[in-house]
């Protein structure tokens, strides 16, 4: 069920374009990853653990060498124009990639000169807002504090594309909420764009305009979030309604002794008389993800 966004976009407004991206490892391969993001919008890269989200992000950042395909950031080649591109990208890593023995202040002094447009005033403002003590050793920071430090670094050099790799994993709902607030604040500027990856879809999905769903190294869909949510329906009902023709309408089906629950993209083909005996709900992205992943596991594409 691979598909691309049918909306034709103005190429000059594209901040990120990925075409036919591939990377091969002995145990895993990422293949034919294609999606794009225009400025002013937020894209969530979702998928289960090990599906290829972090690999995709590392390839964009040229931390891994791609084997195939093309990546353009701000219309520029991500390898040839790496230096220029990275000036305008704010990157928040999943794992801490700073020297733990240094303090926040010392680390900043090393990193800041690498950026052309470092804004010290803004950085200090973020430190205050995030309650970070510049004299604190990075090793001594909690996971949430490390992410906040990483965020402060990413947001203090006038980046136009913010990339966050699993920014909320292992963090509590209060922090996730704070992060969401920061991202909404950033997106008041229509020239910026955000790409984040996550396997917890329920919190960050609110802000996402687009969703790209990756599973087993392939893009399952890349689409407007609202369209995804409107296309699928979650249907529940008593078991006696199930026959082979109804079963065929489901992408995934879970039967139990007290009824069935299934995900369908073809609600229209189920007759109104049947529907009356069933409950039809809007699935969450989580539910859509689970059904699609399970289907692939059973070998259906």
């Amino acid at each position, binding site marked *: 069920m691979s598909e691309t966004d049918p909306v034709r976009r103005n190429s000059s407004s594209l901040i990120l374009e990925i075409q036919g991206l591939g990377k091969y490892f002995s145990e895993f391969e990422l293949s034919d990853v294609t999606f794009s993001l225009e400025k002013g919008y*937020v894209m969530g890269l979702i998928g289960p653990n090990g599906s290829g989200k972090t690999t995709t992000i590392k390839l964009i950042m040229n931390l891994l060498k791609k084997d195939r395909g093309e990546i353009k950031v701000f219309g520029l080649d991500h390898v040839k124009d790496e230096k220029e591109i990275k000036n305008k990208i704010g990157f928040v890593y999943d794992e801490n990639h700073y020297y733990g023995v240094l303090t926040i202040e010392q680390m900043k002094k090393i990193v800041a000169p690498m950026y052309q447009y470092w804004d010290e005033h803004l950085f200090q403002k973020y430190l205050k807002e995030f309650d970070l003590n510049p004299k604190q050793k990075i090793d001594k920071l909690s996971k949430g504090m490390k992410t906040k430090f990483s965020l402060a670094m990413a947001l203090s050099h006038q980046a136009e594309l913010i990339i966050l790799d699993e920014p909320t994993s292992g963090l509590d709902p209060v922090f996730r909420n704070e992060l969401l607030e920061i991202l909404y604040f950033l*997106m*008041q500027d229509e020239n910026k764009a955000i790409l984040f990856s996550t396997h917890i879809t329920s919190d960050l999905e609110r*802000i996402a*305009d687009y969703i790209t769903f990756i599973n087993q190294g392939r893009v399952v869909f890349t689409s407007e979030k*609202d369209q995804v949510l409107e296309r699928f329906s979650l249907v529940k009902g008593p078991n006696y309604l199930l026959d082979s023709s109804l079963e065929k309408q489901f992408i995934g089906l879970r039967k139990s002794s007290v009824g069935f629950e299934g995900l369908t993209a073809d609600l229209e083909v189920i007759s109104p008389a049947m529907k009356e005996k069933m409950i039809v709900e*809007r699935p969450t992205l989580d539910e859509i993800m689970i059904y699609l992943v399970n289907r692939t596991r059973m070998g259906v594409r």
Partner: protein
Amino acid sequence: MNIIISHMSGEPIYQQIINQIKTLILAGDLTEGEMLPSIRQLGKDLRISVITTKRAYEELEREKFIYSVPGKGSFVALQNCEARIENKRKQIEEMLKDVVKESRLLNLSLAEITEILKNVYDDMTPAK
């Protein structure tokens, strides 16, 4: 301006925004020329995506409830009286539906409902 959206309701979020802004305009709570929050501000305030608010505004614009000035924002458009009267009629119809529903519980006939309505109407009309 108050807009309250539900994530549990089956109604799409953009549709909820459209309906509520329409209601605010037709009720006169939002008046002609009044500026609406920007799509980015509304997205932030409602904690939904920019595309969702954009879609709602585009639909309201198509139906001439609002208009937008590039670089300035979106504003409430002039509403004609007909639309307002039509909207009130619809509201009355909705209220009467409740009346009919309740009456059916008591097995009241149409004539009996009409009789009640007439009495209420007479009671509320000052004698000449």
